[in-house]
């Protein structure tokens, strides 16, 4: 059986795994980017209070491997609290949680690194906090954030395969299942690698496109 015959034979399993992985990633990406932007902005605005709490969470999260977090949420936590949460939901929660704090760190640092002179200028011009945030700070940090945030999303896509270890029927788990039946590891895992490349290359190109489109060169000549 060649790879095409395998795909045709097991197309339902492939498509289901593909759908689960894409759904998982879309949820993790959207929750992470929106949540991370909000947490990052609040952390920069209220550095001493909200920012400190976010920093503690961020430090703890970055110190724990994603797979450990997934396992911890799936096994001991559910046992401890005697609850039963579907593995897909746990995977979304864990990966989105990590994504939120990774994005928040980027947003917070970008806001804090923005030269203070523009904020002073906005302040003496009487611009309100909301206007300064929406029309000065966010547009100025957008350029430097596009690349790193999309890089984090690619990392999240890669981390999504860990969800298979807590029984989420994602593409990795489906490939493993099919491989157990047909034993064609080279073909199947090469196909999986191609699948990831097909998703990550457009993301990288999108980052470059956005940078080019929205990031005018403001440097002094």
């Amino acid at each position: 059986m060649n790879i095409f015959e395998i795909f045709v034979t097991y197309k339902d399993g492939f498509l289901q795994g593909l759908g689960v992985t894409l759904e998982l990633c879309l949820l993790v990406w959207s929750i992470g980017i929106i949540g991370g932007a909000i947490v990052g902005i609040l952390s920069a605005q209220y550095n001493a209070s909200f920012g400190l709490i976010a920093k503690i969470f961020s430090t703890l999260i970055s110190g724990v491997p994603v797979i450990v977090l997934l396992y911890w949420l799936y096994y001991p936590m559910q046992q401890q609290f005697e609850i039963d949460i579907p593995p897909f939901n746990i995977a979304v929660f864990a990966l989105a949680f990590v994504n939120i704090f990774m994005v928040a760190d980027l947003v917070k640092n970008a806001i804090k690194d923005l030269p203070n002179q523009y904020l002073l200028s906005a302040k003496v011009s009487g611009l309100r906090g909301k206007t300064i945030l929406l029309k000065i700070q966010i547009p100025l940090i957008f350029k430097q954030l596009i690349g790193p945030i999309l890089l984090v999303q690619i990392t999240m896509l890669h981390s999504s395969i860990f969800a298979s270890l807590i029984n989420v029927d994602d593409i990795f788990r489906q490939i493993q299942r099919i491989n157990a039946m047909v034993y064609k590891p080279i073909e199947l895992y090469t196909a999986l690698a191609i699948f990831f490349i097909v998703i990550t290359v457009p993301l990288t190109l999108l980052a470059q496109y956005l940078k080019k489109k929205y990031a005018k060169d403001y440097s002094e000549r």
Partner: protein
Amino acid sequence: MQKIILKDNYMLEGKNIYKQINGSEILNNISLNVVPSKISCLIGPSGSGKSTIINCLSLLTPPSKGVVTLNGQDFSFENEKSSYSIFPYPLVTVVFQGLFLFPHMTNEKNILLPLQEHNKDLSNFDILVDRLKIREVLNKYPNECSGGEKQRVALARQILLEPQYLLLDEVTSALDLETVNTVAEILVEMRNKGVGILLATHMINLAKTIGNDFYFIDKGIMIESGNISRLNTPETERLNKFLQIYI
């Protein structure tokens, strides 16, 4: 611009202002007033503390110690941690030496954004744009303009906000003489309408032409102050030497 009518004691006043940065004293017991309908000139060599005075007086940088009084309301500082976010910008506004135009906006947007935020009358926009000769650069970004063009855009932005007190930090340094004259005319018009202006400058002749009084500082210390005519007969040797170099 409407004529501003303020109570007699209304002014922007800095009393016994001290400022330390990283342990070194930048300002040492500085007191000065910005009075409505007057142009006060702040003169002194580079690094003497002129920009720091403007930042402290506008409360952008809190003084280490001292009192800033705006129209009778005191803002007291006992330490660096005191700060006031309620200072009524752009009632008091600043044109910085570094200009600090928003780099991602065209010059036109730079001028219009604060005006729209405060629903300011735009009828003076075209007049001022033509007087300052910046119409051709309105659609350009700040980094596409010369230093002089950026100075004029920054000036237009703050002037159109119709402040009560306008603090200017070396804003004519990159302008040609003709444009300096135009700026001088505009400042005099503003003064005549009741605006209090503090002009930090190296251009002694400009100060003598449009100023009412002066403050001369060196190394953060007020050396001499008084009516602008006293620049012709300075009392201190330090000011005398400074004037010989800069005139």
